């Protein structure tokens, strides 16, 4: 979620190249950038040296259960750019906005058309729009109605999004849940703290969650029923709502 590694659908993963992701300004005059991707000793040493030279000191903030947050605080964008150029690390301006700008909407999310599951299955669950959770369902209901279904076959689970009664497609589970709750008012955003809250079941797909996390560089906060992203500016909120199709409460 923080952009350190990339995981493919085949469950292979790769460490991403190091990049300084610029955070949106919020309530402070300084410009901040966090290091995402590989962080070998050479990278860190280079950043430290470049930070001292550019007047953008590098700090390390430990995060429980995650790699330390390596952050550069600069008085201006020039200092950030100079830091990146001196260290040899790419600088991604407004990383959150750029990632969202290159993310397809949930309505256009990649999916693989498939035939509806038939035969004997163990469990069929449907993601309820009203309850925002999985509820019991049946294969007959899944075959006849649109919705997002989770079906347990002999040895695996499959997630099928039915946009209509006849059209079925495999889709990422997170994207499917959000697609099932299209236009529902489930998002809350605090104007003072810029904290965006979603139901826990609606953790966005990786790219969207990464964009939201890169508003501060920290992982979201998971409470009992909600997931909260801090420091989400209004523009990012607007784009998130446009991409997900959800609405504010």
């Amino acid at each position, binding site marked *: 979620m923080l*952009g*350190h*590694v*990339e*995981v*493919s*659908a085949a469950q292979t993963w*790769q*460490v*991403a*190249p*190091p*990049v300084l*992701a610029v955070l949106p300004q919020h309530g402070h005059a300084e410009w901040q950038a966090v290091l*995402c*991707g*590989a962080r*070998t*000793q*050479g*990278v860190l040493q*280079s950043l430290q040296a470049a930070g001292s030279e550019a007047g953008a000191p590098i700090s390390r903030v430990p995060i429980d259960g995650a790699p330390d947050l390596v952050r550069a605080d600069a*008085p*201006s*964008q*020039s*200092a*950030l*750019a*100079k830091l990146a*150029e001196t260290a*040899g*690390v*790419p*600088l*991604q*301006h*407004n*990383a959150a*906005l*750029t*990632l*969202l*700008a*290159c993310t*397809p*909407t949930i309505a*256009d*999310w*990649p*999916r693989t058309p498939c035939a509806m599951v038939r035969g004997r299955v163990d469990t069929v669950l449907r993601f309820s729009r009203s309850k925002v959770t999985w509820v019991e369902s049946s294969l007959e209901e899944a075959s006849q109605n649109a919705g997002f279904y989770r079906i347990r076959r002999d040895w695996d689970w499959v997630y099928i999004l039915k946009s209509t009664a006849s059209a079925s497609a495999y889709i990422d589970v997170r994207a499917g849940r959000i697609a099932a709750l299209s236009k529902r008012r489930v998002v809350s955003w605090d104007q003072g703290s810029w904290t965006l809250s979603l139901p826990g079941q609606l953790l966005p797909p990786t*790219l969207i969650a*990464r964009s939201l996390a*890169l508003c501060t560089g920290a992982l979201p906060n998971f409470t009992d029923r909600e997931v909260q992203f801090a420091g989400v500016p209004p*523009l990012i909120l*607007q*784009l998130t709502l*446009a*991409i997900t199709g959800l609405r504010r409460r």
Partner: protein
Amino acid sequence: MTDFLLLAAAVGVVLAIAYIAVRRRGRATAKRRTRISGDGGEAPPVSGDGGRSPTIPPSGTHRASADRQKHDESASDAWRVRRSPEPEDLGEKGTTSPLHSSARPDLESASCERQLTSGRAELAASSSGTASSGPGIATTKPTNHAGDLGAEELREAVDPEEPNRVPGAAAPNLHPVPGPGTAPQSVETMDRHVESGGTPSPRTRGRPTGHPPGSQGATSISEGDPPSVMEVHAPPNAPTDVTTDGHGSEVSPRKTGGRRRAARTSAGPLSPPIPPTFEPESDRRIRRVTPAEAADAPGPNQARTGTPAAPDPPHTELPATAPLPSRPPGGQSRVSYQDRRGTKRFRESVGKLASPPPATPKSPVDRAPAEARLRLSVHPLRRTAEISVMLSRPDGFPDRVELAIAGRPIIEAYDDTRYDDVDLRGVGTFLDDEFRLQSTEGFRWVRRARPVHVFTSDPAETGLVSTGAVRTGVQHTIVCRTTDVPLVRQMAEATGSPKPVELSRGDHFPSGWTLLSGYVPSRSSTMPIPDGLTPLDPGSDLTISLEAGLSIRPRVYAEGQPPRILIHPDPGRAAVTIGGQPATETSDGGWEAAGWDAPGHHLVDIVPGPTVSYQILPDPWRTRGWSSCSFHEPPPNPKPMGLAAQAQICGALVLGPEGHALAWEKHPLLIALGFRGVARALRPRTDMPVSIVFMPEPPAFVLAARGNRRKQGHVYWLGHTRPRTNASSPDLDWCRIVRLASVRRLSLENSDAEGMRAWEAARSKVRRFRRNHR
């Protein structure tokens, strides 16, 4: 006589026609001059009939070179009249769209006089490259209508003489070269808007005609203005059927005479007109289209290139660059130029992101020789043994090597750690002395001389593999000289091993050597160890373990995070070496030696005792860097995403076909500028209020404008001052944009001293360019 009369009549007719034409031209000129003097009045209706000359809209208009304007009454049907936006449709105070640097409809005569006077002076000083380059960036000073783009500035931006002065240079009305897939914004469009719908002539480019109060902006045609067609052609990759305005609403282009125009359909009361999308004209003259030409007009994509119009793929394929307009000699041929500056260099660097230049690889001669081990293969039935050599493959060794021995065998790499076995039949007594092998490229392998060779099983290898010393409780096979067999049997007895069994040698096994299998020591030797047979003593049952460190693979660690080498129990008097260097115990119990944590292969050797090898991988930061990766599937429907569909996301880094990605909140006008060149217009998404562009170098500035008022446009500083493109000649479109933003005095945001210096440097560069190309 009759012939003479006929001839005279014909001549008379010709003279009469000429006379009428001259008179009409003179009348048109007179009318135009009259209006310039401030007669006011409403703009004449659209000239759609066959003969009436278009009239000059009053106030604020200027005809810098009216005497050079061409007027073809017969081409009246080819007048392209562009419906101006309704006053209520205009942005503010009836101003045209922020993309149309037009003089405002309700200019007054007094202001027009002032504009005319100052404009004439400025026109003389204007030069090419400063034309109003596009919507929203007109070089206009505020008129009596604060913030409105006036004709004066447009005139300043355009020098009709310029095309003639600087052949080969871009025509005055240069506009930003659109980036791949971006929507080019031509100054011609702005001119068209400016001239109140009067289709401007080559002479009237940049000269706003203004509008009488209440008139419909661009509907009137300037009197005396030779009507010409603003040919608007969709960019190669723009959707030809639909274009969008700055607010994301779709606008259907009008098709007129086979040419397509992006026109407003229905905008809201306060929404600015939609900027048309079109490709840059290589010929800067605004050419008037005769009816014949209009009838034969090709489609928008072939009008310039002469090639059949191809359907534009919806942002799935972008040209490397947009054609840079240039002025062809004679104005006939089309010059297509693709700006590839930085493209190749950047594409080469994509495979190794964020890394300094890799260090110079070591030559084979400078490398330390690698280890050569032996493999003993025992036939399961015949119980005969054959021996082969295993060449290790340290980091940096090639995939194939040609050995400098008889036959020049070529050995392929088996995996990252070793090569295929080498069969050294008949090579010589490689068991006797130190064994050295070299490839034709200079890579070397060595195996120390030893009187006995100890083999044991290795879970990662087949057969038995040579090892440094025996270990208690492990079965070994000993290869020794035939004369040393009795000593070996004594050692077996002294170490508590069962009696070794002699194996038969294979046909190709070196003579003079014997194989003894079943050597399983259980204790350290109870008798003095003969010289050379130290490996047969398990010693104190020492074990070597590797702990901690960042393990990439088994026994492979990352540079900077080596393993902690532990030896248990204490080796006592046994000699411990790492990589041939004597090792010492540290305070935390680990063993270290000189160069023990350097990149490369290392061998922990205890004599007497076991050996363990490990490898340190070099930091990619110092070598090849990281390769980019993108595991995100492309969207099934890329059309709404537009240019963004071509992005590659790797971690937090977003790359595109041309390089660096920049996203911005959607504005009616967004242009990204490099530090020394490169101007790219951001392309909006149709489904979200965001625009994006890909640039060959990190962007230094972003010009964003919401309207044509000064306070509605800003230049944002992004901080980059080290361009990657080292173009010898400046990007003309970049010059234009900087010039126009400077003339409009747009404020510089997010800037510090460095940013202000950078902006000033950009302006200075533009000024120098203008001086040099006058």
